[in-house]
């Protein structure tokens, strides 16, 4: 997929010092659960808002172009 496949943002600089998960503090299950539920709430709030018309229009246009082009 060309440009899309290549990672444009170089993350190498922070690799080495970040890999210390063994020494990290384990959060209590209750806190992990609270954060987990907040993430889901955040997700659900965005996902439940309607898809803007411009996206639907864009895809319809692209598809129409394709049909004209090909078959």
């Amino acid at each position, binding site marked *: *997929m*060309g440009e899309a496949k290549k990672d*444009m943002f170089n993350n190498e600089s922070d690799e080495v010092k*970040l890999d*210390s*998960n063994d020494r990290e503090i384990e959060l209590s299950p209750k*806190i992990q659960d609270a954060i987990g539920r907040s993430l889901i709430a955040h997700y659900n709030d965005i996902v439940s808002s309607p898809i803007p018309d411009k996206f639907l229009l864009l*895809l319809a246009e692209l598809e129409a172009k394709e049909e004209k082009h*090909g078959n």
Partner: protein
Amino acid sequence: MATDPKEEKRIPSSNESKVFRDKLLAEIPNLRVFAISLAYSRQNADDLVQDTLLKAWSHAASFAEGTNMKAWLFTILRNTYYSLYRKRGREVQDTDGMYSERVAVPASQDGVIDLADFRIALAKLPADQREVLIMVGATGLSYEETAAICNVAIGTVKSRVNRARTKLSELLSINGVDDIGHDKKIVSTVNTNRHVSPLT
């Protein structure tokens, strides 16, 4: 279908475009969630989603059937964001405008962190931690898929997720289990206005 499966370059039939379009459509909500975690405002996020859809469409032939469309699209979106960001010269964005839209309906209160407070805390995470937390914790990608999208090792993803959770619990003052639900304490901690570069 006239397409030879062995042929490298697929010629899209109109049916194929429809199927592809439907798959893209189905992933738009996930793309918006991910875009918001990268691009701060919903407006910027939607521009990013739009660019992603256009790129996905023009690279449709490179999408391998049977692989994960969500992961493929997230990779495109992420690369689009970071290439744009670099072109703009790494300007430092402040977090004041991020997630500034207050939610209309507050999250249910039973020991649950207020969603608006949660988003303010989320905005203060370093960008590399926030994106993996959203990918793993909200959009349901696996550690493996997330690692591939970010082009890092799985251990790095796990480490970032752990750090993100720890940082969130600090920002929201829920280190002590009993603090959950004490709104005053949460608000006072979250309101410290610190400008954080998303790329630190």
